[in-house]
């Protein structure tokens, strides 16, 4: 485990170092890519200047809204569907095909219906994220042992009470997997939508910089998104593993 970690870090360091070298030697021309050290430097000065604080805040706020909405709606819908097998069976083909449908194709439609606001972006992030929460909530709820449900019935709990006191706490680690995916998908949805058309946000600034051949800004913001998303996802991944290992020990 430790060894693999060290080798992994070494691979990343060597890859970044190689990229740096190729850029510095001019093998990769500077109008294609700037050296990683220059990206980091540019990012540092941009963050310090506060020039993109508004865009960063806008993107993060939209991602945050999409995540929270997807979590709430996903858990609610998952719980409801688990209690209504007929509806679940009918919707099953939808679950199986959902992620095959190119969600961004709905973005132009959303723009036409709702206009150029934050809402279409949030909607794309939400739509990508919510199904992961629903599917994982169902998966967790399906695993609740019958003995716990019998106990709940003996205590005379209603559907809502049973959901909050027995089913959902048991399913928590699986629901968490759904949350983790929801975070990743919300970022993908919102930032993708910003790229396609928007008037602010990190994705907008990157495509603006691209159109103006402003590589220092463009690569700095690309680096920012990648570092941000990888850090968030990796932390959630580590947290998830802790949750699951605790469940296994119990």
């Amino acid at each position, binding site marked *: *485990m430790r*060894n*693999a970690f060290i*080798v*992994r870090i070494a*691979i*990343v360091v060597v890859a970044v170092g190689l990229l740096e070298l190729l850029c510095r030697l001019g093998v990769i021309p500077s*109008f*294609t*890519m700037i050296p990683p050290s220059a990206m980091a430097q540019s990012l540092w000065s941009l963050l310090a200047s506060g020039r993109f604080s508004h865009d960063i805040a806008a993107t993060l706020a939209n991602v945050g809204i999409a995540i929270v909405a997807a979590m709430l709606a996903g858990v609610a819908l998952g719980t409801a569907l688990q209690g209504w097998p007929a509806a679940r*069976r*009918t*919707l*099953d*083909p*939808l679950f*199986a*095909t959902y*992620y*095959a*449908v*190119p*969600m*961004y*194709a*709905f973005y*132009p*439609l959303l*723009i*036409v*219906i709702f206009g150029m606001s934050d809402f279409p972006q949030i909607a794309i992030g939400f739509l990508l994220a919510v199904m992961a929460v629903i599917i994982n909530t169902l998966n967790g709820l399906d695993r609740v042992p019958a003995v716990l449900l019998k106990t709940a019935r003996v205590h005379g709990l209603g559907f809502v009470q049973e959901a909050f006191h027995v089913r959902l706490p048991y399913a928590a680690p699986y629901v968490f997997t759904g949350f983790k995916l929801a975070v*990743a998908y919300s*970022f*993908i949805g919102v*930032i*993708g939508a910003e*790229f*396609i*058309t928007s008037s602010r946000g990190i*994705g907008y600034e*990157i*495509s603006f*910089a*691209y159109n103006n051949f402003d590589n220092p800004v*463009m690569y700095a913001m*690309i680096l920012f*998104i*990648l570092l941000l*998303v*990888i850090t968030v*996802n*990796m932390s959630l*991944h580590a947290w998830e593993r802790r949750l699951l290992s605790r469940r296994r020990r119990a």
Partner: protein
Amino acid sequence: MKWRDPLILVFLIVILWQVLYALIGDVALRSPATTAHNLGTLLSDPRFLPHINETAIAFAQGFAIAVVVGLLIGVPLGAARFAGEVAEPILVALYSIPKVTLYPVILLIFGIGMPAKVAFGAIHGIVPISIFAMNAVRNINPTHLRTARVMRMSFLDLTLKILLPAALPEIATGIRVGFSLALIGTLLGEMFGSQRGLGHLLMQAMSLHNIERILALTLLLVVFAAGINALLLALDRRLHARA
């Protein structure tokens, strides 16, 4: 029986669409029937076919590259346990980043046009295919491999009779996921880095506020993606049931 639920579902979606249309009206929506008619007109328009062709060619190339490269990465990583352990978190991290972000880089490398679209479709598909292939090979029952060694199977026999049948179902799942993602990648690529193709038409229709066109294209893409996925899913389930 098997076909009943999907049919009910499609029926429900059409009803929902019709209700939405009744609520929103012609300002921003068209009815399902009108849209189907518009799509028919669009499909019989000779000026439209080159765009479909463009997208189909870009997607086919991107998907083919994704399958080949994905398997070339995933299969060896599944066979070499330590290398797989090192690579897995890197692959997962690559899977979960918004790859759209890398689009300007792809454009700077390949320029606007076909190669950029193909590359963008490919990078979306490679990672899931390699992750699934890695797990497929890694999870082959070691007893089977030991039995093969005891029976002194040749490498060809080993590959054809043990490795392939054991890993195929998972690999098929990976290819199905990769298919969807490569399609999304290709369309995204067309949406902001192309003068042709369905993604480009969608963007053009959006800036012209052409609701008929947007709806017809969206319907076409959704039906195509869902249809192919349903076929691949059926194949996938058959492979898994046999294993």
